[in-house]
């Protein structure tokens, strides 16, 4: 495209949709996080106050929950990359006639939504489940490993639920990466590791970034999976927000929780940028 200006107008409809349907309510939430709920009513009092933020920052409980969720989401991304990249590579290069079927199978967790697969996982991971049962009958363990109600259990659930979001964008990118590139690099004497680092990874980077962003955000805001697999023992961001917003009906506090989380994410993103810049210079 020679004309750079006009093309950016293509973003306008999307931005308009987000502005009306997302940013307008978001602005309301920002305002609401500075409001309060007087005693004895669930209606809000729009007098500006910092009580919600004071409550979050004066009590490690909420910050720990937010931090734990950030950590779980990061680990989910890492595990998804490790598991997803080879699968995407296999689908793009080796699957042949199994390609579409494998893609469809990888899409199934998203097809089924969070609820039913999570209940399936409960059946697998519970003390009576197949995982513990098999390990027991093999004599590897004599007492059930507690998988439900632990961070490991939640992690398994998050990876299972969101792996497709890593694999699918990766396949879309790797598809466009001609095998001839690798061949050319090899024929020029590059070792396999070098081919990967210099050729495959840079070209796959957009897919990796897309997948990571999607998996990270999905894990961060995931509600059903941590709620059911954590069995209420582990507080996560979405579960805390849901409890406050939908059960306690303290919307100002729920809004403040969301704002603090956004702040933490921005800080994390900023730190990554600074580190990258530091590494480059």
């Amino acid at each position, binding site marked *: 495209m020679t004309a750079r200006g006009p093309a950016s107008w293509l973003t306008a409809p999307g931005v308009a949709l987000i502005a009306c349907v997302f940013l307008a309510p978001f602005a309301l939430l920002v305002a609401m996080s500075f409001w309060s*709920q007087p*005693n*004895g*009513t*669930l*209606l809000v009092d729009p007098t500006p106050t910092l009580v919600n933020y004071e409550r979050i920052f004066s009590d490690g*409980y909420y910050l720990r*929950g937010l931090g734990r969720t950030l950590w779980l989401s990061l680990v989910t991304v890492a595990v998804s990359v490790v598991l997803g990249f080879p699968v995407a590579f296999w689908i793009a290069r080796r699957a042949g006639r199994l390609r579409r079927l494998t893609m469809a199978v990888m899409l199934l967790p998203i097809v089924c939504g969070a609820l039913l697969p999570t209940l399936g996982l*409960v059946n697998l991971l*519970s*003390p*009576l489940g197949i995982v513990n049962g098999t390990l027991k009958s093999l004599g590897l363990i004599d007492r059930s490993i507690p998988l439900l*109600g632990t961070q490991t259990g939640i992690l398994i659930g998050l990876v299972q639920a969101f792996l497709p979001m890593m694999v699918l964008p990766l396949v879309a990118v790797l598809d466009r990466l001609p095998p001839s590139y690798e061949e050319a690099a090899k024929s020029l004497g590059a070792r396999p590791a070098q081919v990967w680092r210099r050729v495959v990874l840079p070209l796959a980077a957009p897919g990796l970034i897309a997948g990571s962003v999607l998996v990270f955000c999905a894990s961060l805001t995931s509600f059903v999976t941590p*709620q*059911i697999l954590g*069995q*209420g*023992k*582990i*507080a996560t961001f979405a579960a805390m927000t849901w*409890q*406050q*917003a*939908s*059960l*306690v*009906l*303290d*919307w100002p*506090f729920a809004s403040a929780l969301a704002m603090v989380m956004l702040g933490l994410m921005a800080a994390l993103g900023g730190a990554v940028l600074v580190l990258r810049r530091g590494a480059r210079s």
Partner: protein
Amino acid sequence: MRMNWKATWSVAALSLALSGAATAQDFAGQTLVVGTWGGDIERLLREHAARPLEEKTGAKVEFLLGGSGDRMAKMYAEKSNPTMDVTFQNIYEAPQALADGLVMAPDESSPIYSDLWSGMNDGCYAMSLVGLGIAYNKDLVEEPVEWADMWDPAVKGMIAMAPYPSSEGDGLLGVAARLEGSDEHDPDTAFAKVRELGAPALNYTSLDEVFALMDAGEVAMAPMISGYVLAALKEWDNIGFAFPTDPGPVLVRDMVCQVANSPNPELAAMFIELALSPETQQAYAEELLFGPTNSKAVLSAQAAADTINTPEEVESLLQLDWPYVISQRSDWTERWNKDVLGQ
């Protein structure tokens, strides 16, 4: 004489038809929106309240399904412009909704009001009565006779609990405080006593989860609300349900509310009357084992045995100070998360 009778009948029939036609015209094209729980409750309300109302008025009745918390949220968010006409809430929500002006106070002069057990209509009309009791694995433990049996050290850490906030959680706190000679106004004592149960073996999101683990012996007991539980237990041979004494089962109520400033107030009032009618209440009791609030409901011996349906039974139940419990919602949720669940 004969002629006269005939004439009277035909006049009566004609006027009935006319009045029917007139009301049908009045409400044709209107849609009443009723918020309630999905599953059997929706089915029974459709059969016994929605269909008769549709036939009588020509209006359409649609159900909005979800949890009662979702409906509370919806009412508060749509305060300026409600889309729901009737909503079913829990006892721990209805008084707050009335205090905040979201629902209309029950009409004490209406004929249906006097048919309901007195003193039950806090905030909204009482729809059904259930009690908090204990579900237990028959192989692992004896039938719990009194609440203190749940604190038996042998079952410590083997208790399943509903997520908080919920009637189950509030009821358990009320019971725990009373075991220590206090009541729900003393949350320190209540929470300390609940903590003695140990970390919950399971924080369940559905009945299937509890019963599967209870069936397998991983969960020994769970404080649960009669009704659905009793109906579901018919499928499980080795799980029992008991209403313990001292301090007795906690009375829990489903309420039916007319939303304030709703689009169809007249239809809403008619729907509520149908929902509270002996017929609907009997169906609730026979099929779901939810106790009727309408004193005129007549139950089969079987349903009568499993439900709270006599003034004496109602008397024996523990009633919490719900408006106070509601005012503590935010604090208690935080304490429950930290102290009971150990988050």
